[in-house]
């Protein structure tokens, strides 16, 4: 017992614990996701986050101590963002062929989501940093966090809003498409990727490969558009 305590004290000072906990908990969450397949709410990222927060609260571990180890996983987001160019390039012919439809649809959907999110939150009395963290919520996490940081939002809030948006979009995409009678798989995929990034796109990919491909290119294009446009809108919409 005594030596076990010493072991714990030692491990607490190394980054190994945070890193191992992240990998092991995510692996377990992925298993839960596999067992509950088809359920959009059994998202492995969400399950892993909730489980890790519970674990850290239970052991009284502060977030910075956990992040010491988890930062090695977190760091890979940068190279992974750069790597998004590979699937985007694979879809290049498709993007070119229907650019006349994709670009207006993407710009309209992206602006609608970002502007309405910031204005609604502002009208309902949310503070400035919360409003700003909502601006980039529709895009993939590394881009959203980078944008939030640059415009004076909270990167960790942005990460959570991105996750919630993706989950909401995977649940809302079918009723939304039905409401405006959109049956075109390309349009459904593009909507999912524009408003719900990778999480909603992964959901569309289960239904149709075409929808998945258009979702994938919407993720990349919206990431770029948001990184350029939201910083310009932020000052205008967030208020004082």
């Amino acid at each position, binding site marked *: 017992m005594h030596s076990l305590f010493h072991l714990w004290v030692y491990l607490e000072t190394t980054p190994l614990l945070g890193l191992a906990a992240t990998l092991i908990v995510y692996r377990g969450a992925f298993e839960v996701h596999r067992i509950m397949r088809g359920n959009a709410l059994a998202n492995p990222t969400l399950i892993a986050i909730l489980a890790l927060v519970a674990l850290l609260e239970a052991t009284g571990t502060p977030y910075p101590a956990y992040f010491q180890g988890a930062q090695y996983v977190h760091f890979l987001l940068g190279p992974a963002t750069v790597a998004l160019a590979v699937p985007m*390039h694979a879809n290049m012919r498709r993007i070119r062929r229907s650019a006349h439809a994709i670009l207006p649809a993407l710009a309209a959907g992206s602006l609608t989501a970002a502007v309405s999110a910031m204005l609604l939150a502002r009208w309902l009395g949310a503070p400035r940093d919360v409003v700003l963290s909502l601006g980039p919520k529709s895009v993939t996490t590394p881009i959203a966090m*980078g944008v939030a940081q640059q415009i004076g939002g909270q990167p960790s809030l942005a990460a959570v809003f991105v996750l919630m948006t993706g989950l909401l979009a995977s649940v809302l995409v079918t009723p939304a498409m039905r409401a405006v009678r959109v049956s075109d798989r390309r349009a459904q995929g593009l909507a999912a990727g524009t408003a719900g990034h990778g999480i909603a796109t992964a959901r569309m990919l289960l239904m149709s490969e075409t929808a998945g491909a258009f979702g994938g290119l919407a993720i990349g294009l919206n990431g770029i558009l948001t990184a350029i446009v939201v910083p310009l809108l932020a000052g205008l919409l967030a208020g004082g």
Partner: protein
Amino acid sequence: MLNALTLLVALQLVGEVIAQAADLPIPGPVIGLLLLLAGLMLRERMGRPAPGAELKATATGLLSTLGLLFVPAGVGVMTQLEVLARNWLAIAVSLVLSTFAGLLVAGWVMQRLASPEDE
């Protein structure tokens, strides 16, 4: 894998340097993404496989773990629980309505403009 990982990290670094030097509001990795995209298009034009087998394998592997990579940042929500609790209504209304509106508009415009032969 080593070459591909080096390329990805180097492009991220170049993107970061460009963003800082030109004082651009765009995150460095996004600039790296654009550079890689331009490089791939150039390679294709020169008649070489784009991406090469190694880059393709590394990118696919890295992107297949994307869900894991969000976890450390997401756990950071534990430092924001108070802010979330105080503003939960504004946040919930904003997230639900804006996501629904974004889906509607993007899907509707795309279906209106896409011609059937685009498939």
